[in-house]
């Protein structure tokens, strides 16, 4: 009984922090269904801001562009990231420590540093800023997240299983294709989903490497938000939040499956 006040204090503390994290998002979602453009009072439930999104060609185009970039870059990042994780775990080659260190640096380096370094690189090699530069950049910042997610999973493996396959005559590729990859699959899908979210949400790197002819959703939202609060943006932000929510949830289920 003596400990009850302490327990209440602990719960209150947790609730306060969660409230801080979630209250603004909850208000945003609520307002996206509010039937008024200006007032912040509740004026009744509506879906008209969502229908307005469906009629906005420019927004739909930039959403399409964003999805295309995200699908392509997360898929390629997952392929290279999976190979990287396998290479760093299984192989010894010159420069291994340097490359692994660089991957770590990418993960920690501020987005703005990556944005300007890639901008300079693309100008040097004369790549027109737009679709291609975006995909290349997004692959680069997703890569370490995939590699780390998968590396953690490989580290749990019993290496004898792979050695057994090799002893039974499987080539390195066959061992990868038929033994390593199936065991890694949940982590691969989880890495893909996280890359997809990262790509879909990125503002800073994209800001530097995109061109005027190829508009993507986060930058479109950024330019709209600079002009103030709009109910259409509330609806759009809610949609983006829902996509993130689904991604995190599915990814969580996959990782959970691994432990059982």
């Amino acid at each position, binding site marked *: 009984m003596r400990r009850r006040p302490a327990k209440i204090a602990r719960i209150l503390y*947790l609730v306060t922090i969660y409230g801080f994290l979630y209250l603004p998002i909850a208000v945003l979602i609520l307002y996206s269904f509010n039937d008024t453009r200006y007032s912040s009072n509740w004026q009744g439930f509506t879906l008209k801001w969502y229908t307005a999104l469906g009629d906005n060609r420019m927004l739909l185009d930039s959403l399409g562009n964003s999805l295309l970039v995200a699908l392509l870059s997360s898929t390629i990042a997952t392929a290279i990231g999976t190979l990287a994780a396998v290479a760093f775990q299984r192989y010894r080659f010159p420069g291994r420590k340097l490359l692994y260190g660089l991957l770590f640096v990418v993960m920690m380096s501020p987005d703005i*540093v990556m944005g300007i370094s890639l901008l*300079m*690189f693309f100008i040097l090699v004369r790549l027109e800023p737009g679709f291609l530069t975006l995909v290349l950049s997004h692959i680069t910042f997703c890569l370490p997240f995939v590699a780390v997610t998968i590396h953690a999973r490989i580290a749990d493996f019993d290496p004898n299983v792979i050695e057994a396959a090799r002893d039974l005559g499987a080539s390195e590729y066959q061992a990868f294709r038929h033994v390593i990859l199936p065991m890694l699959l949940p982590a691969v899908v989880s890495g893909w989903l996280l890359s997809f979210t990262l790509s879909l949400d990125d503002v800073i790197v994209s800001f530097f490497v995109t061109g005027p002819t190829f508009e993507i959703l986060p930058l479109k939202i950024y330019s709209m*938000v600079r002009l103030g609060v709009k109910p259409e943006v509330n609806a759009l932000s809610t949609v983006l939040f829902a996509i993130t929510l689904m991604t995190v949830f599915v990814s969580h289920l996959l990782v959970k499956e691994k432990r059982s």
Partner: protein
Amino acid sequence: MTDRSPFKTAVVAVVAFWILVFVLLPNLLVLAASVLARDEVRFIRPGFTLAHYRALMSTEILGIFVRSIAYAAGTTAICLAMGYPFAFLLARSSARKLLLMLVVIPFWTSSLVRTYALIIVLKANGLINTLLLETGLIQQPLPLLYSNTAVFIGLVYTLLPFMILPLYAAMEKFDPALMEAGYDLGASRLQVLRHILLPVTLPGIIAGATMVFLPALGLFYVPDLLGGARSMLLGNLIKNQFLAARNWPLGAAASMTLTLLMGLLLWAYFVSVRRYGDPREALTR
């Protein structure tokens, strides 16, 4: 793996190619640009100079640096103060899977969307002002938005999950029996915190601080959207040099200082892991 399998060669080649071309080379370009002369048309021209690093020392830019670092350090301190007890409670909770998930969701949610959500809460006829006005605590709406306070709240709000997750990872590995042992041996709460919990979770603290401090310097859209034009931070400075002022070498030099800060923090992290990581491995389950 001593055998030369073509698969292995191909894998290593692809991975090495990508990292060297899209990570190492671009960063070397920034370093090069920061010590080359400025050119109006082609951005940079040959000729070694340290003038851009000296220009960073001018009163105006130094002011931005100092303010930016103060904001980032303040954000880190507040996130740590809020996140440390939080991560501790989380790691001890029976519902920690669910509670952790509730931190992971904002971690992965677009920072732009979250910053925008904060605008809705802080604006003149937003939630906070409406509540305060209706309860009669204030007569006029408070000017919360477009202030330095709003930028500060925005940075803490955006980056708090980035502090909590590494702290949680460190706390989860920590064996609570160590604290019990400390108490049994007569240590006070403060002594247990100071001599057991803090050292063991130090790598987590430094990892969290790195993940908050560095982005806090570079997140240009937070001051852009929440602050007035006055609250310009390092990220805004770099962005302006590249896009508006077209002074690439100066922007590159400013960016190099960010890279240098990152190097220092990563170094501190590895030192702490080397010093406290091993005992942690030995002492935990």
